[in-house]
């Protein structure tokens, strides 16, 4: 209804008499309106109103570094358009930012920088492209890129490491082991230890895997490497039912003082399994921008019945809905956990977990599929995970419990309660 203005006072009084009539008519109109009242775009009035905070200021070290790299790329595009190395360097930097900050926009920037070199067979170009592809879960494409990089440069250790990592996610342990062996042959003991340690831990030899990771840790003084190895050691200890050991590793990793989303996610999952949600809330304060960490935060707040849980669960719902609209499927493992444990939609959770398991088959992917299958009493849906448990010999006790529970569920019969695991994320 438009604002009345310059109304003749007489009409104004007349209209006052009919206000009830108008109210009724307006009410009917509102009821019949096909458009629900949407939050309308607004017109700010204060020029000083801050609308958006950028991830970095132009004067920040990172921003200056990026600007420098971009300038080199722009110059190279004019002077030596065939040289892919400046673009590769910038794209690699963007990729690092995407991982460190959990911000996929940098992946899009890196893709755009690399676009002119789509046909290049340069190993550095192929390696960056492979990383970008694996980020988008194009694992086969990424494996091909790293294989191409190795063809051009057989000494390219990180290409082997990447291939090993991807095969681990795909639960192809035989292929992963070959990549580990190649790293050993190249004389890279730390990389080899990380690679073979995980292959063993995933493949039914947790003790040997843990020992290999520990040896690799003893080999390296590099803080980044130590952080990663300690995190994985913590996970393996938790799977083995050794919570004290796991906590020691996690705390050593956290003590390095390096922000790392993967470490925080693994540590939070550990704390959630240990029934210590209050600590999760403390550790994850300020990390809401990351979907994966927001999920853990919302799980902890829900367990504690904190009022903040509601807004965070809603934020997750909005983010998954937004990802769905653009056809983004890289968040399905987290989405399944959200659906199962926060949204109470086990049926959709099962479908999402099953779709995720087609692509990613790590223990955490297996676990949410098992949990969803049990919640929906759909024994058949969990068959791929039981096949994996059988074939790999994975020793996580809680996984084995869930696996047998999932085989016994029948529609209409109350689901067995495998209980809270003593240890394991």
């Amino acid at each position, binding site marked *: 209804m438009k604002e009345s203005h310059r109304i*003749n006072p007489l009409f*104004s009084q007349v*209209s006052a008499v*009919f206000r009830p009539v*108008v109210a009724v008519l307006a009410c009917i*109109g509102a009821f019949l309106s*096909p458009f629900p009242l949407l939050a309308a*775009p607004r017109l*700010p009035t*204060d020029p000083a109103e*801050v609308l*958006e*905070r*950028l*991830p970095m*200021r132009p004067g920040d070290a*990172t921003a200056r570094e990026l600007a420098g790299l971009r300038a080199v790329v722009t110059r190279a595009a004019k002077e030596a358009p065939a040289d892919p190395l400046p673009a590769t360097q910038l794209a690699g930097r963007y990729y*690092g930012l995407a*991982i*460190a900050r*959990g911000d*996929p*926009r940098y992946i*899009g*920037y890196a*893709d*755009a920088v690399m*676009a002119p070199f789509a046909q290049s067979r340069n190993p550095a170009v192929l390696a960056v492209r492979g990383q970008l592809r*694996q980020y988008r879960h194009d694992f086969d494409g990424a494996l091909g890129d790293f294989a191409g990089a190795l063809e051009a440069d057989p000494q390219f*250790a*990180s290409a082997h*490491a990447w291939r090993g990592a*991807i095969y*681990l*996610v795909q639960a192809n342990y035989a292929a992963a082991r070959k990549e580990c062996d190649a790293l050993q042959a190249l004389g890279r003991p730390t*990389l080899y230890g990380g690679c073979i340690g*995980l292959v063993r831990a995933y493949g039914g030899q947790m003790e040997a895997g843990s020992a290999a990771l520990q040896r690799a840790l003893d080999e390296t003084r*590099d*803080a980044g*490497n130590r*952080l*990663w*190895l300690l995190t994985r050691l913590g996970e393996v200890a938790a799977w083995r039912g050794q919570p004290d050991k796991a906590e020691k590793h996690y705390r050593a990793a956290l003590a390095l*003082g*390096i922000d790392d*989303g*993967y470490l925080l996610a693994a540590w939070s999952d550990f704390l959630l399994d240990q029934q210590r949600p209050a600590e999760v809330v403390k550790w994850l304060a300020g990390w809401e*921008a*990351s*979907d*994966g960490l927001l999920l853990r935060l919302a799980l902890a707040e829900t367990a504690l019945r904190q009022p903040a849980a509601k807004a965070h669960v809603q934020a997750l719902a*909005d*983010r998954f809905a*937004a990802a769905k*609209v*653009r*056809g*983004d499927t*890289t968040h399905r493992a987290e989405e399944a956990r959200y659906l199962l444990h926060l949204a109470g939609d086990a049926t959709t959770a099962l479908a999402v977990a099953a779709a995720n398991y087609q692509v990613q088959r*790590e223990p955490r992917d297996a676990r949410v599929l098992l949990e969803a299958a049990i919640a929906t009493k759909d024994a058949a849906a969990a068959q791929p995970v039981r096949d994996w448990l059988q074939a790999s010999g994975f020793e996580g006790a809680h996984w084995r419990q869930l696996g047998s529970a999932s085989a016994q569920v029948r529609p209409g019969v109350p689901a067995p309660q495998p209980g809270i695991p003593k240890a394991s994320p």
Partner: protein
Amino acid sequence: MMRLRGILCFLLSLFACAAMPAMAHKASDSYLALQVKGQEVTGQWDIALRDIDFAIGLDANGDGEITWGEVKARHADIAAWALGRLNLERGGECALQVAEHRVDDHTDGAYAVLRLAGTCPSRTQALALNYRLLFDIDQLHRGLLRLELDGVSHASVLGPASGVLNVKAGETSRLAQFGQYLVEGTWHIWIGFDHILFLLALLLPAVLVHESRRWTGVGSFRVALVEVLWVVTAFTVAHSITLSIAALQIVELPSRLVESAIAASVVLAAANNLWPVVERRRWLVAFGFGLIHGFGFASVLTELGLPRDALVLSLVGFNLGVEIGQLAIVACFLPVAYLLRNTPLYRKGIFVGGSILTLLVALVWLAERVFDLKLISA
């Protein structure tokens, strides 16, 4: 916010990356809603301020914050940049411009809202859309398009490999188009209070007879039904005639005149209930004023836009829709009125009271429309 990791050692930490690839904020999306009706284009385009900043720079003072003042100062640049990356063709390039700038918040931050307006050379041909926003600098960017072409909706995700879209006009079945105008017609009578009040003013006395200066209930339902049918049919025939000639642009009347006359018709119909002048042949009143109301319906139809290739079909659909809306009102009104016809509630409260209310409301409308005021119009 996540802080930058101190040391980026990828030789090992890349494992973690593969295992947990997308701990994401959100990749870049823009939201483009376009309505193309004949030659007319309207729309809204929401683009993240962060993306605009990355493309053309918004943070003038370099403090890492984008203020409304900084955005406002660049409105012309933002419009030129965005419109330079969107082409719309319908029988040739459609001239687009940004009519208004607003801001809005989405799940991942603040967005500039560009209200679009424009015209295309053709009103019937296929529509071609070419979207290139941000692809040169962000290949993960997607344009989330909702397009309404002549009332038919399309949704699409526009990416670097799928930024060009061709939508054939009239690809929807004739039936769907017919149905759409049918719904519009029904809808219009439901939200057009003046039409409803006019009809009700004529229908209120249908269950009564005026004998020796007082009203009594009619003897049978059939009598009331026949009276109603006459009134409704006459109204329909009349407004169909004028609606058609106005929609076909044979006769065009100024809308203020039409709207005022419609208000006057409601005044007179209500007054006739209180001080009966026309008693027997109310269908004649319905017919006469129906001619006026038809011009009113036509203005709605003009706003909707009539497809050239399905002119008659749409017109018939709209008319039928109006009819269905009217019949729904009659179906609700008549049985209740018939049952209550001999009660004081109906004769005093509903018939007299309702007529007085209608008269007064219509008088205000009349005043508004004649003097071009805004008093109570919804």
